[in-house]
């Protein structure tokens, strides 16, 4: 449902253009596949909040199984799905949420307001010229995961 209503990108060119052409707005890219249950949950939250954050954020879904997207999957080091990556004016925005990976948000959110808070925190940080912001959510509502160093 949400996959139909939010733009779903399956080509590298589309991802390129959406990163390049989203100006002065936070771009939220969700890397995942619609068959994954956690991914579906995240998609649902993204879709429901997409209107509320539409003034300062744009949300797009990226199909991780697409052939052309693999270059991004490798480049963004996506090993777990769903992974959400934030861009502002074609600059990658990081967030320190106490997990191993600052470059992306891995997993879903507990509720809509959590996602709105995160997007707002990153947007405000970006408007102040910061490339990394700290997570506004309490640690118990941040999904935990473990990264293996260079997949070893």
């Amino acid at each position: 449902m949400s996959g139909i209503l939010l733009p779903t990108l399956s080509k590298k060119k589309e991802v390129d253009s959406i990163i390049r052409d989203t100006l002065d707005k936070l771009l939220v890219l969700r890397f995942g596949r619609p068959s994954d249950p956690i991914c579906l949950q995240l998609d649902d939250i993204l879709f429901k909040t997409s209107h509320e954050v539409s003034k300062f954020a744009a949300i797009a879904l990226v199909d991780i199984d697409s052939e052309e997207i693999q270059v991004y999957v490798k480049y963004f080091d996506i090993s777990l799905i769903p992974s959400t990556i934030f861009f502002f004016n074609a600059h990658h925005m990081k967030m320190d949420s106490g997990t191993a990976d600052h470059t992306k948000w891995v997993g879903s959110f507990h509720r809509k307001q959590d996602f709105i808070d995160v997007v707002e925190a990153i947007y405000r940080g970006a408007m102040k010229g910061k490339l990394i912001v700290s997570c506004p959510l309490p640690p118990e509502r941040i999904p935990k995961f473990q990264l293996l160093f260079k997949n070893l």
Partner: protein
Amino acid sequence: MEKEKKKKQKQKQKQKRQFEFCKVCKLNHDQGRGHIYFPNHKKSLSSFLSRFLSNLSELRSFLKNPSSLTPHHALQNGLWCVFCDSNISELHSSFACENSIKHLAGAEHLNNVREFLRKYGGGMDRVDSFRVSESDLDKWEKNCKSLKNAASSSSEGSFVHLSRPSKDIHYKLNSVTTDRFEKTSNFSFKSSFSNSVMPLQCNTNESYQVSHPEVTRVANSAAVPYDAVPLSMSTHRNMDVPGMSTIESAAGHHTVCMESQHACFSNSRGSTATSFHNDSWSFTQIGRLPEEPIANVYSGAPPPWLEMGEESGINLGATKDLHMNDVVSHSDQSHKSRKLNPKRVGAAWAEKRRIELEREKRGEIAANNCDDSWLPNFGRVWQAGTRKESRKEFEMEKQRLFNIENTSEASIVIQPYKSKKAVSSTTPKILL
């Protein structure tokens, strides 16, 4: 004790002071007489008076050269006398600024001016600059009388012309040209229609004939014949002077400076310009003259912006779209860049990209002209250092992967098995 008494008296005085309105500063104040010495008051007073003086300057030009007033212009004219707080309309006056001049010369106005200057400052010695002196009034009245006489003695046609409502809506131009008359050349107008017959005013109606016997030129002869162009074209066009060259007729009767010709041409597109087509005219034509009479609003043709064929309709739609986009993006840009923090992340990039997008919309550069290998800056998970480095690293990795794949593919070249016997049997044949 005495000091206290004085203080109390002062306080009482202060309390007694009432608020009064200063119409120069347009504010209520309780500063009493001292108000007029405040610099703000002085500033606004000088601008207030200079504004009125500038209004009077036009009037003074008419005072020197009285001219008749068409009823059409009478409606537009009028003066607001700031000293008497009254509006002087020119509704029933037969000469330009007649009522105003009479008002400014009146005793009531003089009293009001004096009172104003006493109340708001500004120097009593300036009274004369805000009124018309009696000697000036006398001169003006004399001139008017002579004008009237001249008008009555001249041909009736001119009166027909005067009584007609002119099509001129550019009254401002009119006053400008009259100013130029005064500045550039020495003309004395005794004719009643000297000022009223202006290039734009001339009726295109061809039924009347006018001659201008009263207008004489005080010779200031430098380059006059060349500079001289007829003031009213239709008049000259309809004059029955078969052998006379236009320049002569122009110089002999009615001349204006070249500038006013410019003004005439630039302002007249339809009627006057077309009526200018006459065999006797040999001037260089400034401004474009239509070869054929173009259908205009008088002939009931639709306005040019409503005329569109199929193509132009499409084009119009497209351009409108583009224009709208442009406008939106422009306003967006100006609005946003004003509002947004210039130090935000990627501000320079956003500006650059926005300009690029605008150009893409206009079709100046091809859309989506980025490389296939374009990647955004990305800080990788295990990356220390700048974000550009992570891209370089990734590209290096890709290159390495590509190389490995290539070498592995090259190493595993599958060859069909050939027995040694077959090899040995084929080689001698080749040798043979």
